């Protein structure tokens, strides 16, 4: 069965423990799913009869919607469970909440939580598959995969590509997942931002640390501009939004100096005029909306791959021993 995936993971918790081959397999699978969204019937029956639960303990619109639509396009039933409006506010623990939901017969739980390690914890107590949709400042694997997928569309070979992650790298799960994923594919990752948000210790992850965007501007192939959280300023990590924008924002002036084929990514939602000026966000180097549509394909691939290795998958392998040429 040479056409069967080498993927044999029940969960997708982060990119740190995935191999280069597994990451490539996920990206290639997502490539195959892109076409589904171009059909008149935008639905395939792969996960028919499966149940996917979005278990979100942090507010999120685009990630949750993206997973919801990805599940729907695979014909799964998708339930949304938001932590703030439910039992957790009545004192139920994360494990209990998840076990209760799983007891309804769930195949895949997609979890977002403000605590690092929440997805891993659920993968230890639940029978079903777990996909991490963001845990604290730890990882957000599908976001990094869609970022890398988008980069690969424009620059197929990531070997030696210089990717700058600009902004609050220290608190960012998006940054952490990107760093793991990009480095495994051979890219050179720069972390750029003020020293309060990009501490020098990040170089232990193998990234080049810079506190001056203008110094590295001309050598970078891809800019991934992280969203800046206003509450970081309230905590005194940088003086003002305006100063941050001036030092670390991409604007028309800086775009004149970057490489001709440089790409601009942003995980959203954009603070217009902070990380990016509108002319950059809507400009020809911006692939931000591609990221959103690619996110759907990447999440379909993630659901499809872990679903096949979940509790129902893989138990009756002998049944299709000779089925290859059927």
């Amino acid at each position: 069965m040479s056409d069967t995936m080498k993927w044999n993971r029940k969960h997708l918790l982060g990119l740190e423990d995935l191999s280069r081959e597994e990451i490539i397999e996920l990206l290639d699978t997502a490539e195959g799913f892109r076409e589904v969204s171009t059909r008149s019937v935008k639905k395939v029956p792969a996960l028919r009869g499966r149940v996917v639960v979005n278990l979100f303990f942090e507010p999120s619109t685009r990630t949750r919607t993206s997973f919801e639509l990805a599940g729907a396009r695979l014909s799964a039933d998708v339930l949304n469970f938001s932590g703030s409006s439910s039992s957790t506010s009545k004192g139920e623990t994360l494990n209990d909440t998840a076990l209760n939901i799983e007891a309804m017969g769930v195949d895949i739980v997609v979890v977002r939580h403000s605590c690092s390690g929440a997805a891993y914890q659920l993968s230890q107590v639940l029978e079903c598959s777990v996909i991490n949709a963001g845990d604290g400042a730890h990882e957000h694997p599908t976001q990094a995969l869609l970022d890398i997928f988008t980069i690969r569309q424009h620059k197929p070979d990531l070997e030696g590509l210089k990717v700058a992650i600009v902004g609050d790298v220290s608190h960012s799960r998006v940054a952490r997942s990107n760093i793991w994923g990009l480095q495994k594919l051979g890219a050179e990752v720069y972390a750029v931002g003020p020293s309060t948000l990009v501490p020098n210790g990040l170089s232990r992850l193998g990234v080049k640390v810079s506190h001056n965007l203008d110094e590295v501007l001309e050598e970078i192939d891809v800019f991934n501009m992280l969203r800046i959280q206003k509450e970081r300023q309230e905590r005194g990590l940088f003086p003002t939004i305006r100063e941050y924008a001036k030092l670390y924002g991409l604007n028309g002036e800086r775009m004149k100096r970057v490489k001709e084929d440089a790409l601009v990514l942003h995980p959203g939602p954009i603070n217009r005029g902070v990380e990016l000026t509108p002319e950059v966000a809507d400009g020809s180097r911006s692939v931000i909306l591609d990221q959103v549509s690619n996110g759907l394909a990447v999440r379909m691939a993630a659901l499809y791959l872990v679903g096949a290795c979940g509790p129902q998958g893989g138990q009756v392998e002998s049944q299709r021993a000779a089925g290859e040429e059927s």
Partner: protein
Amino acid sequence: MVTPDDFGSLYQRWLAGIRQTTDTLEDWALVGIKRRGAVLARRLLEDLGGSAGAGGPGPAYGELDISLYRDDYHLQTGAPAVLGTEISFEVEDKSIVLVDDVLYTGRTVRAALDLILDFGRPRRIWLAVLVDRGNRELPIEANFTGEFFETARNDRVQVRLKEMGDDYDGVDLTSFVEAGA
């Protein structure tokens, strides 16, 4: 089962049968099931005067990846590789010749039919298979068959095609003898 020497005449007989019907068609398409069915469909396309590019003369052309339509996803140890479906023509009201290398249980063809119908409502679908090895599990039959072979369920039938990296064109049968027999 079919030596490289015999493969040519088997293919020509199959092609001639298909041509008899497709010569009478106007708005039609060849659609191959990945991967070996698609390789054969590309050969047929060339011999029937078509081109893979859109808007050329002859039939339209497409390739199907049925992995998302399989009925055994839940039985697998891993997910089947997603190769991508490429249908760039309008399926609505088209006459379609669906091509695969081996017809066995019929489950692949069932999946391919469902996949095509998700793109639109064709006028008619014919099924062309190079080899029919029997042992159907669904009520599905081919319109154009290169050759029928009586096989046991445990046998393995493989169509060899140079485009797939095989050393020769041919059809191989491997019989698995029960352990201890």
